């Protein structure tokens, strides 16, 4: 509008001048237009910075730890006595706790999650699925501290009334509760994988006279196996990193053992115990949480990477 007015009022203005005028007015807008993506890029870069910060803090502080405790002691010793007169820092007791709680959780979540996925994707009508799936996902929305409370005040006493040898804090009860917590993860991701198997394959099986069950087990699951395995791996990674349930219900005994009735400490629970116990900065105990956290981070990172690889490599294209 304005340029038009200008050109009418000052008829003897040269075209060159007009073009320059237009340019300078637009250039402020242009600068702004160019600045926006730059600023937004910085926002997106925060996530990369977070990763760098995590790696940097974990590695630099873990190096302090490994200057005092040898690599071989940390990864092969079955003794973990961080606060004794003659301290020893072996990771294996924590690894056994983590491994055991994860195995128990997967024994619960694996079969139940897979069966729920089969039901939701093969048997349930659309209406039932739309009702059940969000309800199942409620389980994943409950804060883990609530599960910890539940494991400690309900599941453990229940287990003890059936099996009296179980200690007041034990690895079995948090493992079971953790399994319940990750059912929706396995069920939801496996169901997605099974849903993406084309219907023509099911119809082929039905046409040959297969029952729904045979179709599910012999056709749909093999076709969706990459997604199902990936969901299991992700669930394992989630169980390894889970903290509050095991911290509350499994106590802090640092034994290298595989007895589910005993109190056992996981890597995550160790980090909680040390960091909330006022370990002075600079002590070996303080640095040990960084070494444990680095191990934990590496394990979950590799698991997540593996899940992605499996999902990509073995996916059958239809």
């Amino acid at each position, binding site marked *: 509008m304005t340029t038009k007015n200008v050109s009418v009022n000052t008829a003897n203005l040269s075209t060159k001048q007009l073009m320059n005028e237009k340019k300078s007015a637009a250039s402020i*807008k242009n600068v*702004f*237009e160019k600045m*926006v*993506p730059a600023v*937004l890029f910085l*926002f997106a*870069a*925060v*996530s*990369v910075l*977070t990763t760098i*910060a*995590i790696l940097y803090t*974990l590695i630099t502080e873990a190096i302090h730890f490994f200057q005092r405790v040898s690599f071989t002691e940390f990864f092969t010793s079955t003794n973990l006595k961080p606060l004794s007169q003659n301290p020893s820092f072996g990771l294996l007791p924590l690894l056994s706790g983590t491994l055991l709680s994860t195995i128990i959780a997967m024994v619960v979540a694996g*079969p*139940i999650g897979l*069966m*729920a996925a*089969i*039901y939701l994707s093969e*048997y349930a009508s659309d209406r039932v699925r739309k009702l059940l799936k969000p*309800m*199942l996902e409620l*389980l994943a*929305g*409950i*804060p*883990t*501290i*609530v*599960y910890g*409370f*539940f494991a400690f*005040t*309900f599941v453990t006493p229940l287990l003890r009334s059936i099996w009296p040898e179980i200690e007041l804090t034990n690895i079995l009860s948090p493992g079971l509760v953790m399994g319940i917590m990750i*059912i*929706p993860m396995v*069920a939801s991701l496996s169901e997605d994988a099974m849903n993406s198997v084309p219907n023509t394959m099911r119809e082929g099986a039905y046409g040959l006279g297969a*029952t729904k*069950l045979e179709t599910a087990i012999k056709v749909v699951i093999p076709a969706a196996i990459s997604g199902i395995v990936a969901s299991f791996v*992700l669930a394992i990674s989630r169980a*390894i*990193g*889970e*903290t509050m349930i095991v911290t*509350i219900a499994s106590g802090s005994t640092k034994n290298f053992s595989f007895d589910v009735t005993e109190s056992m400490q996981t890597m*995550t629970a160790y*980090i*909680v115990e040390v*960091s*909330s116990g*006022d370990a002075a900065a600079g002590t070996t105990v303080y640095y040990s*949480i*960084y070494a444990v956290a680095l191990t*934990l*981070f590496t394990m*979950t*990172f590799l698991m*997540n990477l593996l899940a992605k690889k499996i999902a990509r490599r073995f996916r059958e294209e239809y």
Partner: protein
Amino acid sequence: MQYIDRLQVRKRINFRLRLNSILKYVFLGATLSGLVVLAILLIRTVSQGFAWIDWNFITGHLSMDPEKAGIMGAILGTFWLMLVVVFFTLFLGMGAAIYLELYAKKGRIHSLIQTNIANLAGVPSIVYGILGLTVFVRLMDFGSTVLAGGLTLSLLVLPIVIVSSQEALRAVPQTLGEASYGLGASKWQTIKSIILPTALPSILTGSILALSRAIGETAPLVVLGIPALLIPFPGGFMDRFTALPMQIYYWTLDAALVEEYANLAAASIIILLLMLFILNSIAIYIRNKFQHRF
């Protein structure tokens, strides 16, 4: 000579059909088993804690004496945390999502950031706690304050906010943007007045869900050294504080010493779940009320 034994075939078919119908109910049972546990958990917690919720419990100060203990401090602490998390994640998350969806060229940097966000979402929350302890509490010397806790939780849920915002932006039809360009609008004008308003309800829904994830998190706060028994209420970002999940944690641990603490923990869980329920209801309301369908 009979090649097909009809009786045998019928038996076999009957067996297969019966197996199918039995296992259908087994699968249904597996689906419901998780819900049954959830029901037990809720019923037990409510029956244990409900009687302990009264005006004094909600508005009172923390106390060693279970009869006098109140959780106003923890509720306020959680609110302060929410303020920090909302402020940081909404702007950073939305900005990052706009960059990735609408500005970035699909290339090496784009896929690097995208993979990085996916990986961050899988990092255990306790690792974020250690990051917060090292960077915010010690390096920047914030101490165990609302700001340190809020920033740590913000980093924790940022990947979730970015991914859900990206999905919201992707759901806006390209024709809307093209119509805007056709009228002579610039890229930023188009984003600001066409694309963002259209996607905003979905972005808010995703952000609220992420927020409800943040306020239930305990592990990072424990690592940051959030105290057990704190009498004064937090009044600012640089104040020390306690939060609802922390209070539940300490009361559960101390239930071995004083039995009533378990009931206080149950009562606090009811309050926390109520807050989560309200947040989720708001998210669902926004989604149903304002979401555009194309």
